[in-house]
């Protein structure tokens, strides 16, 4: 094996190890491509997410086949509902892929949630919603900004297939229409940096 190939292998192995332990990674757009990882560019192009690409048929369905328990998540149904609501709020152009989508707000999510439940909003709803949003943020299904109360779809949604998207399109039609988003004014780059630091 040539030196170059060995280096290439090592480079891939390093990124793979990172992705395998931490999930999708946000990296500088200048990072060279890594085999097996799909690049999901952030809407403003400032960064790129590396998401592992699994061959079709190698997803979570395999766990069922092996009778192995899936990765546990707290309040799985509630969390899945919030994810569905966020898809309805953030995936505005339904003919385009779900990634990157647009930014949605907490107000939208709350409104759709109450609409789905078919009753006026209750005080306990907000706790459930915020909890689910944080859980989904931690697993990169959503990008949830706690301070601005804004949400975007996470890089993992890039793994949804065309069939998944068709199902979701249908689901979005069944959910109540979200009100128009009222976004908070764009944060300045300095603030953004502070935000990131405080996140870590």
């Amino acid at each position, binding site marked *: 094996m040539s030196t170059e190939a060995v280096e290439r292998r090592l480079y891939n192995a390093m990124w793979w190890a990172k992705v395998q332990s931490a999930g999708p990674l946000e990296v500088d757009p200048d990072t060279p491509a890594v085999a097996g990882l799909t690049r999901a560019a952030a809407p403003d192009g400032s960064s790129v997410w590396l998401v592992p690409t699994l061959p079709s048929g190698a*997803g979570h369905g395999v766990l069922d086949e092996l009778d192995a328990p899936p990765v546990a998540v707290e309040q*799985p149904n509630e969390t*899945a509902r919030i994810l569905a609501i966020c898809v309805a709020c953030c995936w505005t152009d339904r003919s385009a892929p779900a990634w990157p989508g647009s930014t949605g707000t907490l107000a939208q999510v709350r409104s759709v949630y109450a609409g789905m439940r078919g009753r006026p909003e209750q005080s306990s709803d907000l706790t459930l919603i915020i909890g689910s949003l944080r859980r989904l943020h931690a697993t990169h299904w959503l990008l949830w900004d706690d301070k601005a109360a804004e949400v975007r779809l996470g890089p993992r949604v890039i793994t949804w297939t065309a*069939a998944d998207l068709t199902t979701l399109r249908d*689901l979005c039609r069944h959910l109540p229409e979200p009100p128009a988003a009222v976004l908070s004014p764009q944060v300045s780059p300095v603030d953004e940096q502070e935000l990131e630091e405080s996140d870590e």
Partner: protein
Amino acid sequence: MDATLLDAEADAAVLRVYRQVFAVLAREAGAMIVDPDLLDADQAILDAFAEAGSDGLTVEQATLACRAYPHDVIVRRFEVLRQYGAITKLVDRPNELRHRAAFAPYVMLMFLRRMSVQGGQGELHQLLTLEAHSVSDPQATADDGSASIGRLTKVFRLLGNELAILVSTSTTAQLRENAQLAWGNERLIEQAEKVHRLVLDRWPELHRDCTSLRMALAAYADAVQLAAGRLVERAGTTRALGLLPIETWLTFSRGSDPGTLAAVLDGLLFDAAAPDFSAQTMVEAVETGRRSGTARMAPPRPTADADAPESAAATDREDLRAEAERVLAGRPSVDIVEVIDEAGDWITARRVLAELTAAHLHDELDYELVWSDGMRIDPTAGTPWATEGVFRRVVR
């Protein structure tokens, strides 16, 4: 006469070797070794003889040398081996205690062991190499080629038959256990085809034998394909990968050290452990959420109130009433024999009777069916034997 005697002697020698070879297979006359531990015992005995050198061993010495095994097992195996000539007396005289072992059973034993470990695939590869070697030998004759082809044909027939029978008759678990029959089949077929090519090039007159070999190979390939198809179909997309049962994978992943596990995963990309939200789970979650949350739904109402379809029970009741009224024809009561005769044959009569009984049993209908003791017998009637009774309106 001389020639015949010589022949007989050669035959006897062959027979002796065969007896020795099959000694390890036979626990007693006609019985085969079914337990691999017995092979171990045999090997221990033969090992002891190898150690003993030219002096040989007595039965007691042999059991002492094999004390790792139960005494009676060793004695029994010793007897069996002696019976089949694998172990013989050092000098053939009465009361000779010392024995010697022949080497052929040991060779057979090694062969059996390898067969049991590798399922005979290795041997088959070697056999194919040997056959290729012998048919390409410049001194080989057409007869050698024909014999070679014949042997290979039989081997592949047996292999293909076994697999085909397994595919058609056995469970998936059995099929998976016997999957080694399908392993490396491409290499085997390739090697066999090489022999086939060599033979056909050298002795074109053997084309008939070659055709049967080709057919055997094709049958084997088909059987492999069928078996693989069944395994894949039954086992899902992933479990058939190694043709191993799922427990094997689980045991491996639990029992391996980090180094081994890392080596397996080297070059494999997988996602970090994360909960999965497929579109389907989201749809289901939203559905259940909607149901639990919404206010109580009004029960479904018939669209048109006026001509609402009656329930099946009501329809049945009205049908029975109509039938009862038809039978009564305005009278307060009617004789059953009359009803039956009116119906004509028994097939119709029993249907009428069934409906009258149903009317009798119905809670909301005021009819009753009362049987009496008499019986009407009339060979000319449609139903010659009829119990007398009365069907009547109940007055409340």
